[in-house]
Protein backbone atom coordinates (compact mmCIF):
# COMPACT_ATOMS: atom_id res chain seq x y z
CA UNK A 1 0.00 0.00 0.00
CA UNK A 2 1.16 3.57 -0.64
CA UNK A 3 2.54 5.29 2.38
CA UNK A 4 0.10 7.75 4.00
CA UNK A 5 1.42 11.29 3.53
CA UNK A 6 -0.95 13.15 5.87
CA UNK A 7 -0.96 13.39 9.67
CA UNK A 8 -1.08 10.16 11.69
CA UNK A 9 -2.71 10.48 15.10
CA UNK A 10 -1.46 7.86 17.57
CA UNK A 11 -2.70 6.88 21.01
CA UNK A 12 -0.84 5.79 24.13
CA UNK A 13 -1.09 2.09 23.29
CA UNK A 14 0.59 2.59 19.93
CA UNK A 15 3.45 4.64 21.35
CA UNK A 16 4.04 2.03 24.05
CA UNK A 17 3.93 -0.83 21.54
CA UNK A 18 6.35 0.96 19.23
CA UNK A 19 8.84 1.47 22.03
CA UNK A 20 8.37 -2.13 23.18
CA UNK A 21 9.28 -3.58 19.79
CA UNK A 22 11.89 -0.92 19.00
CA UNK A 23 10.00 0.64 16.09
CA UNK A 24 9.46 4.19 17.30
CA UNK A 25 12.26 5.65 15.23
CA UNK A 26 10.91 4.00 12.09
CA UNK A 27 7.39 5.22 12.73
CA UNK A 28 8.25 8.76 13.78
CA UNK A 29 10.70 9.30 10.96
CA UNK A 30 8.44 7.72 8.37
CA UNK A 31 5.28 9.74 9.08
CA UNK A 32 3.98 13.00 10.47
CA UNK A 33 3.09 11.52 13.82
CA UNK A 34 0.91 13.61 16.10
CA UNK A 35 -0.81 13.01 19.41
CA UNK A 36 -2.39 14.86 22.33
CA UNK A 37 -0.93 15.94 25.65
CA UNK A 38 -2.88 13.34 27.63
CA UNK A 39 -1.37 10.51 25.57
CA UNK A 40 2.15 11.81 26.16
CA UNK A 41 1.42 11.86 29.90
CA UNK A 42 0.15 8.28 29.72
CA UNK A 43 3.42 7.08 28.20
CA UNK A 44 5.29 8.03 31.34
CA UNK A 45 5.97 5.65 34.22
CA UNK A 46 3.14 5.57 36.72
CA UNK A 47 0.58 6.28 33.99
CA UNK A 48 1.19 3.47 31.50
CA UNK A 49 -1.15 0.96 33.14
CA UNK A 50 1.30 -1.77 32.27
CA UNK A 51 2.87 -4.07 34.83
CA UNK A 52 6.31 -3.87 33.25
CA UNK A 53 6.72 -0.20 32.48
CA UNK A 54 8.92 1.21 29.73
CA UNK A 55 11.24 4.13 30.30
CA UNK A 56 10.26 6.68 27.67
CA UNK A 57 11.98 10.02 27.80
CA UNK A 58 9.22 12.61 27.45
CA UNK A 59 11.50 15.23 25.90
CA UNK A 60 12.75 12.74 23.31
CA UNK A 61 9.22 11.59 22.58
CA UNK A 62 7.92 15.12 22.08
CA UNK A 63 10.93 16.01 19.92
CA UNK A 64 10.18 13.12 17.59
CA UNK A 65 6.49 13.95 17.28
CA UNK A 66 5.27 16.34 14.61
CA UNK A 67 2.83 17.91 17.09
CA UNK A 68 1.41 17.40 20.58
CA UNK A 69 -2.01 18.99 20.86
CA UNK A 70 -3.69 20.38 23.95
CA UNK A 71 -7.37 19.50 24.18
CA UNK A 72 -10.01 21.77 25.67
CA UNK A 73 -13.16 20.93 27.60
CA UNK A 74 -15.16 22.25 24.66
CA UNK A 75 -13.54 19.63 22.40
CA UNK A 76 -14.04 16.85 24.95
CA UNK A 77 -17.66 17.91 25.38
CA UNK A 78 -18.27 17.18 21.70
CA UNK A 79 -17.15 13.58 22.27
CA UNK A 80 -19.39 13.23 25.34
CA UNK A 81 -22.42 14.59 23.51
CA UNK A 82 -21.96 12.72 20.25
CA UNK A 83 -21.09 9.33 21.70
CA UNK A 84 -22.15 9.17 25.35
CA UNK A 85 -22.22 5.38 25.63
CA UNK A 86 -18.65 4.38 24.74
CA UNK A 87 -16.31 4.71 27.70
CA UNK A 88 -12.87 5.73 26.52
CA UNK A 89 -9.85 6.37 28.68
CA UNK A 90 -8.53 9.92 29.10
CA UNK A 91 -5.95 9.83 26.30
CA UNK A 92 -8.20 7.98 23.85
CA UNK A 93 -11.01 10.45 24.44
CA UNK A 94 -8.72 13.44 24.02
CA UNK A 95 -7.27 12.01 20.82
CA UNK A 96 -10.73 11.62 19.31
CA UNK A 97 -11.77 15.04 20.62
CA UNK A 98 -8.81 16.51 18.77
CA UNK A 99 -9.38 14.44 15.63
CA UNK A 100 -12.96 15.70 15.36
CA UNK A 101 -11.71 19.30 15.14
CA UNK A 102 -9.63 18.58 12.01
CA UNK A 103 -10.58 18.73 8.38
CA UNK A 104 -7.32 17.51 6.83
CA UNK A 105 -6.44 13.98 5.71
CA UNK A 106 -5.57 12.49 9.10
CA UNK A 107 -5.65 8.83 9.98
CA UNK A 108 -5.83 7.45 13.51
CA UNK A 109 -3.87 4.52 14.86
CA UNK A 110 -5.14 3.05 18.13
CA UNK A 111 -5.96 -0.62 18.76
CA UNK A 112 -8.57 -0.45 21.50
CA UNK A 113 -11.93 -1.82 20.41
CA UNK A 114 -13.85 0.95 22.20
CA UNK A 115 -11.83 3.55 20.33
CA UNK A 116 -12.44 1.65 17.08
CA UNK A 117 -16.16 1.44 17.81
CA UNK A 118 -16.16 5.19 18.33
CA UNK A 119 -14.63 5.71 14.89
CA UNK A 120 -17.01 3.27 13.22
CA UNK A 121 -20.01 4.89 14.92
CA UNK A 122 -19.04 8.29 13.50
CA UNK A 123 -18.49 6.94 9.99
CA UNK A 124 -14.72 7.25 10.20
CA UNK A 125 -13.85 3.60 9.56
CA UNK A 126 -11.64 4.52 6.63
CA UNK A 127 -9.54 6.75 8.86
CA UNK A 128 -8.48 3.86 11.06
CA UNK A 129 -5.17 2.19 10.35
CA UNK A 130 -3.12 -0.60 11.90
CA UNK A 131 0.37 -0.04 13.24
CA UNK A 132 1.55 -3.02 11.23
CA UNK A 133 0.36 -1.35 8.03
CA UNK A 134 2.07 1.92 8.89
CA UNK A 135 5.38 0.21 9.66
CA UNK A 136 5.12 -2.06 6.63
CA UNK A 137 4.43 0.85 4.29
CA UNK A 138 7.46 2.59 5.73
CA UNK A 139 9.56 -0.46 4.91
CA UNK A 140 10.11 -1.46 8.53
CA UNK A 141 9.66 -4.87 10.08
CA UNK A 142 9.85 -4.96 13.91
CA UNK A 143 12.39 -7.31 15.42
CA UNK A 144 9.85 -8.46 18.02
CA UNK A 145 6.42 -9.44 16.77
CA UNK A 146 3.66 -6.89 17.27
CA UNK A 147 0.81 -7.92 19.53
CA UNK A 148 -2.25 -9.13 17.66
CA UNK A 149 -4.28 -5.94 18.14
CA UNK A 150 -1.70 -3.96 16.14
CA UNK A 151 -1.90 -6.12 13.04
CA UNK A 152 -3.76 -5.32 9.82
CA UNK A 153 -5.65 -8.58 9.71
CA UNK A 154 -6.96 -8.15 13.25
CA UNK A 155 -8.03 -4.57 12.59
CA UNK A 156 -9.96 -5.51 9.46
CA UNK A 157 -11.72 -8.34 11.27
CA UNK A 158 -12.68 -6.16 14.24
CA UNK A 159 -13.81 -3.25 12.09
CA UNK A 160 -16.07 -5.60 10.17
CA UNK A 161 -17.58 -6.92 13.41
CA UNK A 162 -18.07 -3.44 14.82
CA UNK A 163 -19.62 -2.25 11.56
CA UNK A 164 -22.25 -4.97 11.86
CA UNK A 165 -22.67 -4.49 15.61
CA UNK A 166 -23.38 -0.80 15.07
CA UNK A 167 -26.17 -1.75 12.69
CA UNK A 168 -24.32 -0.18 9.77
CA UNK A 169 -24.23 -3.39 7.78
CA UNK A 170 -27.93 -3.00 7.03
CA UNK A 171 -27.54 0.41 5.39
Amino acid at each position, binding site marked *: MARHRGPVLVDTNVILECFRVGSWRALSSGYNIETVEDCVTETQTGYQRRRAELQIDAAHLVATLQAVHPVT*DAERAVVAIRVPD*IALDVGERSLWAHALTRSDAWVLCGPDKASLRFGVRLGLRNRLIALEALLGDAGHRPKDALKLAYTTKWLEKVLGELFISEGLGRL
Partner: protein
Amino acid sequence: MTTNIIGARIKALREERKLSQDELARLFGFKDRQTVSAIETGERRVTAEELVIAVEKLGVSLDYFTDPFLLVGEGRFSWRQTDVGPQKLSAYERNAGRWIAAFRAIAPQVGRSAPLLRRSLGITRHQRFEDAMEAGERFVAEFELGDIPAKRLVEVMERKLGILVLMVDAFQGISGAACRLPELDVVLINRHEIAGRRHFDLAHELFHILTWDAMPPEHSEEARETGGNRVEQLANNFASAVLMPTPALDRFGDWSEIAGGELAGRLNAVANELQVTASALKWRLVALDRLKPAAARTVSDAALRNNGRDVVQTVLPPPFSKPFTEVIALAVDEGRVSARRAAALLDLTVDDLADLCATHGVQAPVEQ
Protein backbone atom coordinates in the same frame (compact mmCIF):
# COMPACT_ATOMS: atom_id res chain seq x y z
CA MET B 1 -25.30 4.55 29.37
CA THR B 2 -27.57 6.40 27.00
CA THR B 3 -30.04 7.54 29.60
CA ASN B 4 -30.29 11.19 30.48
CA ILE B 5 -27.14 11.38 32.58
CA ILE B 6 -26.33 15.00 31.84
CA GLY B 7 -29.82 16.31 32.55
CA ALA B 8 -30.10 14.29 35.75
CA ARG B 9 -26.75 15.56 36.96
CA ILE B 10 -27.56 19.17 36.17
CA LYS B 11 -30.69 18.72 38.27
CA ALA B 12 -28.76 17.05 41.11
CA LEU B 13 -26.22 19.85 41.20
CA ARG B 14 -28.90 22.55 40.98
CA GLU B 15 -30.69 21.02 43.96
CA GLU B 16 -27.46 20.58 45.89
CA ARG B 17 -26.66 24.27 45.31
CA LYS B 18 -30.26 25.21 46.16
CA LEU B 19 -30.74 27.00 42.83
CA SER B 20 -34.14 27.41 41.19
CA GLN B 21 -34.69 26.51 37.54
CA ASP B 22 -35.09 30.26 36.86
CA GLU B 23 -31.69 30.98 38.38
CA LEU B 24 -30.08 28.21 36.38
CA ALA B 25 -31.77 29.43 33.20
CA ARG B 26 -30.21 32.89 33.75
CA LEU B 27 -26.82 31.25 34.32
CA PHE B 28 -27.08 29.43 30.99
CA GLY B 29 -28.54 32.45 29.21
CA PHE B 30 -31.86 30.71 28.44
CA LYS B 31 -34.88 32.96 28.17
CA ASP B 32 -37.02 30.91 30.56
CA ARG B 33 -36.91 28.03 33.04
CA GLN B 34 -38.78 25.71 30.66
CA THR B 35 -35.56 24.97 28.82
CA VAL B 36 -33.85 23.94 32.06
CA SER B 37 -36.83 21.78 32.92
CA ALA B 38 -36.70 20.12 29.49
CA ILE B 39 -32.96 19.42 29.90
CA GLU B 40 -33.42 17.98 33.38
CA THR B 41 -36.15 15.59 32.25
CA GLY B 42 -34.27 14.58 29.12
CA GLU B 43 -36.81 16.05 26.69
CA ARG B 44 -34.13 18.31 25.29
CA ARG B 45 -30.48 17.37 24.76
CA VAL B 46 -27.70 19.64 25.99
CA THR B 47 -25.36 20.93 23.30
CA ALA B 48 -21.61 20.76 23.69
CA GLU B 49 -21.51 24.54 24.07
CA GLU B 50 -24.11 24.45 26.85
CA LEU B 51 -22.20 21.69 28.57
CA VAL B 52 -19.09 23.84 28.64
CA ILE B 53 -21.12 26.75 30.06
CA ALA B 54 -22.36 24.41 32.80
CA VAL B 55 -18.78 23.37 33.59
CA GLU B 56 -17.59 26.96 33.75
CA LYS B 57 -20.52 28.54 35.56
CA LEU B 58 -21.10 25.75 38.07
CA GLY B 59 -17.41 25.10 38.71
CA VAL B 60 -17.38 21.33 38.35
CA SER B 61 -15.49 19.06 35.98
CA LEU B 62 -16.80 17.95 32.61
CA ASP B 63 -16.71 14.38 33.92
CA TYR B 64 -19.14 15.31 36.67
CA PHE B 65 -21.81 15.74 33.99
CA THR B 66 -20.74 13.07 31.51
CA ASP B 67 -18.96 10.18 33.25
CA PRO B 68 -21.33 7.21 33.47
CA PHE B 69 -18.94 5.60 35.95
CA LEU B 70 -19.97 7.96 38.74
CA LEU B 71 -22.87 7.99 41.16
CA VAL B 72 -24.13 11.55 41.42
CA GLY B 73 -27.02 12.29 43.75
CA GLU B 74 -28.18 8.67 43.59
CA GLY B 75 -27.53 5.40 45.33
CA ARG B 76 -28.08 4.89 49.03
CA PHE B 77 -25.46 3.05 51.04
CA SER B 78 -25.59 1.37 54.42
CA TRP B 79 -22.16 0.57 55.84
CA ARG B 80 -21.18 -1.90 58.55
CA GLN B 81 -18.05 -0.54 60.13
CA THR B 82 -16.07 -0.17 63.32
CA ASP B 83 -14.42 3.15 64.19
CA VAL B 84 -14.18 4.41 60.62
CA GLY B 85 -14.53 8.19 60.42
CA PRO B 86 -17.11 9.81 58.14
CA GLN B 87 -14.48 11.33 55.84
CA LYS B 88 -12.72 8.04 55.29
CA LEU B 89 -16.02 6.29 54.75
CA SER B 90 -17.16 8.96 52.32
CA ALA B 91 -13.94 8.66 50.29
CA TYR B 92 -14.33 4.90 50.09
CA GLU B 93 -17.98 5.26 49.16
CA ARG B 94 -17.04 7.47 46.19
CA ASN B 95 -14.64 4.79 45.01
CA ALA B 96 -17.13 1.97 45.45
CA GLY B 97 -19.74 4.11 43.72
CA ARG B 98 -17.59 4.06 40.57
CA TRP B 99 -17.58 0.24 40.39
CA ILE B 100 -21.29 0.13 40.99
CA ALA B 101 -22.07 2.90 38.50
CA ALA B 102 -19.88 1.25 35.89
CA PHE B 103 -21.59 -2.11 36.33
CA ARG B 104 -25.00 -0.46 36.16
CA ALA B 105 -24.04 1.34 32.96
CA ILE B 106 -22.41 -1.48 31.06
CA ALA B 107 -24.18 -4.66 32.23
CA PRO B 108 -27.30 -3.95 30.12
CA GLN B 109 -25.09 -3.24 27.09
CA VAL B 110 -23.61 -6.72 27.25
CA GLY B 111 -26.91 -8.47 27.93
CA ARG B 112 -26.60 -8.72 31.70
CA SER B 113 -29.37 -6.41 32.91
CA ALA B 114 -30.46 -6.63 36.54
CA PRO B 115 -33.81 -8.37 37.10
CA LEU B 116 -36.85 -6.27 36.30
CA LEU B 117 -38.55 -7.18 39.57
CA ARG B 118 -37.16 -7.12 43.09
CA ARG B 119 -37.75 -9.66 45.83
CA SER B 120 -38.67 -8.38 49.29
CA LEU B 121 -39.34 -9.77 52.74
CA GLY B 122 -42.67 -8.92 54.31
CA ILE B 123 -41.18 -7.93 57.64
CA THR B 124 -41.57 -4.59 59.40
CA ARG B 125 -39.66 -3.04 62.28
CA HIS B 126 -42.52 -3.81 64.67
CA GLN B 127 -42.22 -7.54 64.24
CA ARG B 128 -40.53 -9.86 66.71
CA PHE B 129 -36.98 -11.11 66.40
CA GLU B 130 -38.46 -14.59 66.15
CA ASP B 131 -40.23 -13.48 62.96
CA ALA B 132 -36.90 -12.43 61.46
CA MET B 133 -35.40 -15.78 62.44
CA GLU B 134 -38.32 -17.65 60.92
CA ALA B 135 -37.88 -15.65 57.72
CA GLY B 136 -34.21 -16.67 57.70
CA GLU B 137 -35.11 -20.34 58.15
CA ARG B 138 -37.64 -20.15 55.33
CA PHE B 139 -35.13 -18.40 53.08
CA VAL B 140 -32.72 -21.30 53.55
CA ALA B 141 -35.43 -23.84 52.73
CA GLU B 142 -36.88 -21.94 49.76
CA PHE B 143 -33.52 -21.31 48.12
CA GLU B 144 -32.13 -24.73 49.08
CA LEU B 145 -29.03 -23.45 50.78
CA GLY B 146 -28.32 -26.87 52.24
CA ASP B 147 -26.49 -28.02 55.35
CA ILE B 148 -23.85 -25.29 55.20
CA PRO B 149 -25.74 -22.23 53.96
CA ALA B 150 -22.65 -20.00 53.99
CA LYS B 151 -21.26 -22.01 51.07
CA ARG B 152 -24.03 -21.15 48.63
CA LEU B 153 -25.26 -17.80 49.89
CA VAL B 154 -23.31 -15.63 47.41
CA GLU B 155 -24.39 -17.80 44.50
CA VAL B 156 -28.07 -17.59 45.51
CA MET B 157 -27.88 -13.83 46.01
CA GLU B 158 -26.31 -13.40 42.58
CA ARG B 159 -28.24 -15.92 40.52
CA LYS B 160 -31.64 -16.07 42.19
CA LEU B 161 -31.98 -12.51 43.45
CA GLY B 162 -29.85 -10.62 40.92
CA ILE B 163 -27.82 -8.91 43.65
CA LEU B 164 -24.32 -7.82 42.68
CA VAL B 165 -21.97 -9.10 45.41
CA LEU B 166 -18.48 -7.61 45.37
CA MET B 167 -15.52 -8.79 47.44
CA VAL B 168 -13.49 -5.64 47.93
CA ASP B 169 -10.28 -4.39 49.46
CA ALA B 170 -11.58 -1.96 52.04
CA PHE B 171 -10.02 -0.04 54.92
CA GLN B 172 -9.62 -1.95 58.12
CA GLY B 173 -12.80 -1.34 60.08
CA ILE B 174 -15.11 -1.48 57.07
CA SER B 175 -16.91 -4.81 57.10
CA GLY B 176 -19.27 -4.29 54.22
CA ALA B 177 -22.18 -2.37 52.84
CA ALA B 178 -25.50 -2.65 51.11
CA CYS B 179 -26.21 -0.23 48.30
CA ARG B 180 -29.50 0.41 46.60
CA LEU B 181 -29.94 2.05 43.23
CA PRO B 182 -33.23 2.29 41.38
CA GLU B 183 -32.02 -0.41 38.97
CA LEU B 184 -29.64 -2.48 41.05
CA ASP B 185 -28.93 -3.94 44.49
CA VAL B 186 -25.34 -4.36 45.58
CA VAL B 187 -23.59 -5.88 48.58
CA LEU B 188 -19.95 -5.07 49.25
CA ILE B 189 -17.92 -7.31 51.54
CA ASN B 190 -14.41 -6.60 52.81
CA ARG B 191 -12.60 -9.69 51.56
CA HIS B 192 -9.93 -9.31 54.23
CA GLU B 193 -12.39 -10.14 57.01
CA ILE B 194 -12.29 -13.68 58.37
CA ALA B 195 -14.66 -16.05 56.57
CA GLY B 196 -17.21 -16.30 59.39
CA ARG B 197 -17.56 -12.54 59.63
CA ARG B 198 -17.79 -12.17 55.86
CA HIS B 199 -20.65 -14.62 55.77
CA PHE B 200 -22.45 -12.90 58.61
CA ASP B 201 -22.04 -9.51 56.91
CA LEU B 202 -23.37 -11.00 53.70
CA ALA B 203 -26.52 -12.40 55.34
CA HIS B 204 -26.98 -9.20 57.34
CA GLU B 205 -26.77 -7.01 54.23
CA LEU B 206 -29.10 -9.41 52.43
CA PHE B 207 -31.73 -8.59 55.07
CA HIS B 208 -31.29 -4.86 54.40
CA ILE B 209 -31.63 -5.38 50.65
CA LEU B 210 -34.79 -7.46 51.12
CA THR B 211 -36.39 -4.99 53.56
CA TRP B 212 -34.99 -1.69 52.26
CA ASP B 213 -38.30 -0.04 51.40
CA ALA B 214 -39.98 -0.97 54.70
CA MET B 215 -36.93 -0.39 56.89
CA PRO B 216 -34.29 1.74 55.17
CA PRO B 217 -31.08 1.14 57.12
CA GLU B 218 -28.87 3.86 58.58
CA HIS B 219 -26.04 5.13 56.39
CA SER B 220 -23.53 3.76 58.84
CA GLU B 221 -23.87 1.23 61.62
CA GLU B 222 -21.48 -0.51 63.94
CA ALA B 223 -20.52 -4.01 62.81
CA ARG B 224 -21.52 -6.45 65.54
CA GLU B 225 -23.38 -9.71 65.68
CA THR B 226 -25.67 -8.68 68.55
CA GLY B 227 -27.27 -5.43 69.71
CA GLY B 228 -27.73 -2.24 67.69
CA ASN B 229 -31.02 -0.56 66.87
CA ARG B 230 -34.15 -2.57 66.18
CA VAL B 231 -33.57 -2.89 62.43
CA GLU B 232 -30.01 -4.04 63.05
CA GLN B 233 -31.17 -6.59 65.57
CA LEU B 234 -33.76 -7.91 63.15
CA ALA B 235 -31.03 -8.12 60.49
CA ASN B 236 -28.74 -9.99 62.89
CA ASN B 237 -31.47 -12.46 63.82
CA PHE B 238 -32.24 -13.06 60.15
CA ALA B 239 -28.55 -13.49 59.35
CA SER B 240 -28.03 -15.94 62.21
CA ALA B 241 -30.96 -18.05 61.07
CA VAL B 242 -29.83 -18.04 57.44
CA LEU B 243 -26.33 -19.21 58.33
CA MET B 244 -27.34 -21.50 61.19
CA PRO B 245 -30.85 -22.82 60.50
CA THR B 246 -32.27 -25.28 63.00
CA PRO B 247 -32.04 -28.32 60.69
CA ALA B 248 -28.32 -27.65 60.27
CA LEU B 249 -27.87 -27.24 64.03
CA ASP B 250 -29.85 -30.40 64.76
CA ARG B 251 -27.00 -32.39 63.26
CA PHE B 252 -24.78 -31.36 66.15
CA GLY B 253 -26.94 -32.77 68.95
CA ASP B 254 -27.77 -31.50 72.39
CA TRP B 255 -25.73 -28.57 73.68
CA SER B 256 -27.11 -28.50 77.19
CA GLU B 257 -25.20 -31.60 78.20
CA ILE B 258 -21.79 -30.36 77.15
CA ALA B 259 -19.52 -29.73 80.11
CA GLY B 260 -18.33 -26.15 80.62
CA GLY B 261 -14.72 -26.96 79.85
CA GLU B 262 -15.60 -28.52 76.51
CA LEU B 263 -18.09 -25.93 75.34
CA ALA B 264 -15.62 -23.53 73.72
CA GLY B 265 -13.97 -26.30 71.73
CA ARG B 266 -17.32 -27.64 70.56
CA LEU B 267 -18.52 -24.17 69.55
CA ASN B 268 -15.32 -23.56 67.59
CA ALA B 269 -15.52 -26.92 65.82
CA VAL B 270 -19.16 -26.53 64.79
CA ALA B 271 -18.63 -22.89 63.79
CA ASN B 272 -15.78 -23.96 61.52
CA GLU B 273 -17.99 -26.54 59.90
CA LEU B 274 -20.81 -24.04 59.33
CA GLN B 275 -18.30 -21.35 58.26
CA VAL B 276 -19.55 -18.86 60.85
CA THR B 277 -17.94 -17.27 63.87
CA ALA B 278 -18.10 -19.24 67.11
CA SER B 279 -19.42 -16.13 68.82
CA ALA B 280 -22.36 -15.89 66.38
CA LEU B 281 -23.04 -19.59 66.92
CA LYS B 282 -23.04 -19.16 70.68
CA TRP B 283 -25.67 -16.40 70.57
CA ARG B 284 -27.72 -18.26 67.98
CA LEU B 285 -27.91 -21.24 70.34
CA VAL B 286 -28.95 -18.94 73.15
CA ALA B 287 -31.66 -17.38 70.97
CA LEU B 288 -32.98 -20.86 70.20
CA ASP B 289 -32.84 -21.77 73.90
CA ARG B 290 -30.44 -24.63 73.14
CA LEU B 291 -27.83 -23.03 75.34
CA LYS B 292 -28.57 -21.25 78.59
CA PRO B 293 -27.35 -17.65 78.84
CA ALA B 294 -25.47 -18.54 82.01
CA ALA B 295 -23.62 -21.33 80.21
CA ALA B 296 -22.89 -19.03 77.27
CA ARG B 297 -21.35 -16.45 79.58
CA THR B 298 -18.88 -19.00 80.93
CA VAL B 299 -17.23 -19.10 77.50
CA SER B 300 -14.88 -16.15 77.14
CA ASP B 301 -14.60 -14.18 73.90
CA ALA B 302 -10.88 -14.97 73.87
CA ALA B 303 -11.61 -18.72 73.71
CA LEU B 304 -13.73 -18.18 70.60
CA ARG B 305 -11.47 -15.67 68.81
CA ASN B 306 -10.77 -16.86 65.27
CA ASN B 307 -12.80 -19.95 66.15
CA GLY B 308 -9.99 -21.05 68.45
CA ARG B 309 -7.32 -20.94 65.76
CA ASP B 310 -3.96 -19.36 66.40
CA VAL B 311 -3.40 -18.61 62.74
CA VAL B 312 -6.06 -16.75 60.82
CA GLN B 313 -6.90 -17.89 57.28
CA THR B 314 -4.65 -16.51 54.58
CA VAL B 315 -6.60 -17.45 51.47
CA LEU B 316 -8.70 -14.48 50.41
CA PRO B 317 -11.65 -14.71 48.08
CA PRO B 318 -10.71 -13.22 44.70
CA PRO B 319 -11.48 -9.52 44.29
CA PHE B 320 -14.84 -8.31 42.98
CA SER B 321 -16.82 -11.29 41.62
CA LYS B 322 -17.18 -13.50 38.59
CA PRO B 323 -20.37 -11.81 37.30
CA PHE B 324 -18.76 -8.39 37.71
CA THR B 325 -15.56 -9.48 35.97
CA GLU B 326 -17.53 -11.10 33.16
CA VAL B 327 -19.39 -7.86 32.50
CA ILE B 328 -16.16 -5.85 32.46
CA ALA B 329 -14.47 -8.38 30.16
CA LEU B 330 -17.43 -8.49 27.78
CA ALA B 331 -17.62 -4.70 27.68
CA VAL B 332 -13.94 -4.45 26.78
CA ASP B 333 -14.16 -7.25 24.24
CA GLU B 334 -17.20 -5.71 22.56
CA GLY B 335 -15.65 -2.25 22.49
CA ARG B 336 -18.06 -0.66 24.96
CA VAL B 337 -15.30 0.28 27.41
CA SER B 338 -11.65 0.69 26.58
CA ALA B 339 -9.20 -1.67 28.26
CA ARG B 340 -7.28 1.20 29.81
CA ARG B 341 -10.49 2.72 31.14
CA ALA B 342 -11.59 -0.61 32.63
CA ALA B 343 -8.20 -1.08 34.25
CA ALA B 344 -8.30 2.47 35.63
CA LEU B 345 -11.75 1.86 37.07
CA LEU B 346 -10.39 -1.03 39.12
CA ASP B 347 -7.06 0.71 39.80
CA LEU B 348 -5.22 -2.06 37.98
CA THR B 349 -2.79 -2.32 35.11
CA VAL B 350 -4.08 -3.82 31.88
CA ASP B 351 -2.03 -6.93 32.70
CA ASP B 352 -3.65 -7.14 36.16
CA LEU B 353 -7.03 -6.91 34.49
CA ALA B 354 -6.18 -9.98 32.41
CA ASP B 355 -5.06 -11.75 35.60
CA LEU B 356 -8.31 -10.82 37.34
CA CYS B 357 -10.21 -12.43 34.48
CA ALA B 358 -8.08 -15.57 34.72
CA THR B 359 -8.67 -15.74 38.48
CA HIS B 360 -12.42 -15.84 37.89
CA GLY B 361 -12.17 -18.21 34.92
CA VAL B 362 -13.25 -15.48 32.53
CA GLN B 363 -11.81 -15.09 29.03
CA ALA B 364 -9.42 -12.11 29.14
CA PRO B 365 -10.33 -9.41 26.63
CA VAL B 366 -6.77 -8.18 26.15
CA GLU B 367 -3.51 -9.79 25.13
CA GLN B 368 -0.82 -9.52 27.79
